[in-house]
């Protein structure tokens, strides 16, 4: 199957599919995907006010089409930014892993293969330390006739190189709609990628992210996901540790209000010996929001010496909020160290009292405690502009 071709789609997932159990199936069926429709340069988006304040190269994609006006494709030597449409058209090897998907995992992967014909491509040559973050911005502006779009992201980091990619997903307007973004990451031997994902589309929209990662020997993948927006915000990582000594470190924060459902689906496959993986996600759920953490560790036969740790800690702020957390461990190798743990708690009354006894008003004390919980994920982000973006976003929205 190749991109842009008409594919036979698997049926839409149902509640019986574990990975889609908490998805709003009826809402998903209302998404009308189609070929991308270019909106032109007159799109009313004040981009710089909404994305982290990072100077440097960026690719901006609106409704599945790269907006060259808003993009800054110039990049440091050895870093090549281009569009998926161009690479697919040119038959580039670079995007082969993205488009040669023989058995789409679900209907949304198939839709993405069919309609996600444009998007961002980042290529880092070997032996480079890229110190400027590369930004990818996706914006969904639903239209009444076609309310949903598909787009692709391809990131390839060459042998021994290191890079940082910041992906920000936003939306405009109050119309119902959705975005389906599929990212394919390939790390060659010894490559390092810090991959930050900021999902903050309006709560009138649905957002589906899927990130497929293939790692070579001694490579390191650090994912930091902030799943904040959307009525249904889904972030699904599928990481395959394919080279000996590879390390995957996935962490994230999901922070739900209103009737949001924020869904994290993780699957880390240890295919070869002596790889390490970490999954560490925190959830804060207020109002009637729902959180999902479905974390898989899959240790294949022969992947001896695997070291995998998973944790999911949740803070529930309302008695109508809900968290569904589930570890899935399948271990078919020897001498494996796998640990997992999950916690669910409420704001600590004693801590609130302690802070109030120091004069801090109860609303501020709540805010401090919530931020303190969330900040332990935020502090882990190396780029100050991204940390600022997140704390402003959270500070702005916490309704205490």
């Amino acid at each position, binding site marked *: 199957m190749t991109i842009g071709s008409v594919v036979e789609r698997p049926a839409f997932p149902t509640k019986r599919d574990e990975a889609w159990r908490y998805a709003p199936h009826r809402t998903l069926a209302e998404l009308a995907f189609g070929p991308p429709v270019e909106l032109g340069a007159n799109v009313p988006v004040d981009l710089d006010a909404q994305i982290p304040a990072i100077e440097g190269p960026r690719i901006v994609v609106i409704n599945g089409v790269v907006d060259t006006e808003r993009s800054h494709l110039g990049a440091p030597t050895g870093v090549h930014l281009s569009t998926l449409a161009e690479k697919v058209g040119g038959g580039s090897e670079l995007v082969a892993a993205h488009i040669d998907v023989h058995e789409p995992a679900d209907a949304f992967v198939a839709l993405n293969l069919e309609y996600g014909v444009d998007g961002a491509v980042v290529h880092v040559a070997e032996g480079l330390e890229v110190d400027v973050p590369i930004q990818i911005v996706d914006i969904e502006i639903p239209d009444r006739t076609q309310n949903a779009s598909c787009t692709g992201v391809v990131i390839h980091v060459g042998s021994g190189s290191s890079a940082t990619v910041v992906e920000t997903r936003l939306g405009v307007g109050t119309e119902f709609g959705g975005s389906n973004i599929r990212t394919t990451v390939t790390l060659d031997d010894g490559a390092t990628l810090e991959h930050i994902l900021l999902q903050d589309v309006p709560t009138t929209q649905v957002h589906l992210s899927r990130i497929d990662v293939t790692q070579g020997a001694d490579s390191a993948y650090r994912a930091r996901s902030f799943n904040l927006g959307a009525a249904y915000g889904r972030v699904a990582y599928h990481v395959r540790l394919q080279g000996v000594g590879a390390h995957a470190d996935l962490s994230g924060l999901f922070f739900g209000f209103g009737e949001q459902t924020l869904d994290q689906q993780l699957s880390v496959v240890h295919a070869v010996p002596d790889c390490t993986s970490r999954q560490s996600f925190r959830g804060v759920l207020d109002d009637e929001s729902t959180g999902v953490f479905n974390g898989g560790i899959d240790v294949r036969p022969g992947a001896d010496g695997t070291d995998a740790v998973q944790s999911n800690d949740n803070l529930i702020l309302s008695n109508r909020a809900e968290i569904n957390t589930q570890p899935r461990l399948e271990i078919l190798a020897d001498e494996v160290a796998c640990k997992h743990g999950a916690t669910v708690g409420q704001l600590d009354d004693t801590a609130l009292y*302690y802070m109030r006894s120091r004069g*801090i008003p*109860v609303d501020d004390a709540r805010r*401090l405690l919530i931020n303190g919980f969330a900040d332990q994920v935020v502090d882990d982000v190396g780029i100050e502009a991204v940390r600022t973006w997140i704390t402003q976003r959270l500070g702005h929205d916490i309704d205490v």
Partner: protein
Amino acid sequence: MLHVENLTATIGDKQILKGLDLDVEAGEVHAIMGPNGSGKSTFAHALAGRDGYEIGGVATLDGADLLEMEPEERAAAGVFMGFQYPVEIPGVNNMYFLRTALNSVRKARGEKEIGARDFLAVAKQAMDLVEMKQDFLDRAVNAGFSGGEKKRNEILQMAVMEPKLAVLDETDSGLDIDALRIIASGVNALRSPERSMIVITHYQRLLDYIKPDFVHVLVDGRIVRSGDHTLALHLEDHGYADFVNHDLDDAPERPLTGASS
């Protein structure tokens, strides 16, 4: 300054304070001693405003009714409680917490908030008082602190907040002799003619270092005896058994020469 009259505190159907009377004037240090379960900590929390008690009676600070106030309002009115078990708050930076606390009470009092730089000077002074290093402020509030560090952090907070009334609940519990000395010297440095203190302790040992103007014995939710610091020495020798029967006069006399080593 502090006026407490017929104070009662009940949790569920269990009455803990059964009519406590106490007056503390400006500049005075009062020690409250008592056996376990006598209501010492409950008294401290009743003044600080902890939820969960049914409170009766009167507690006013300079005429203002404390019992009507939320905990943060009491802090703004000048009440500070040093916790027996300071709470760990992971993820909240100690320095930020302190500055937020100070600025919250300043704001509540209609005073100007203090900027980060000026606050650093205030914090520095407080740190010196309890012999703490700068990195202490960079850590999360009490998270991973040793018992002694937590108690020193309480005194540091008190130094920053500059309360009218400090209620120190078993500040000496779990301290070794060096930590006790540091804490006591911090507390002594904060004594002033405008500030009152209530020092709650189970043991007389702390009062060797912080010499109280008055000592009260709390038994079964009431103050059963008040005296000067020699009362504490009597307790050291004889325990609280005498007071359970309200019968001090049978105890032998003890010379008023301060603590024995």
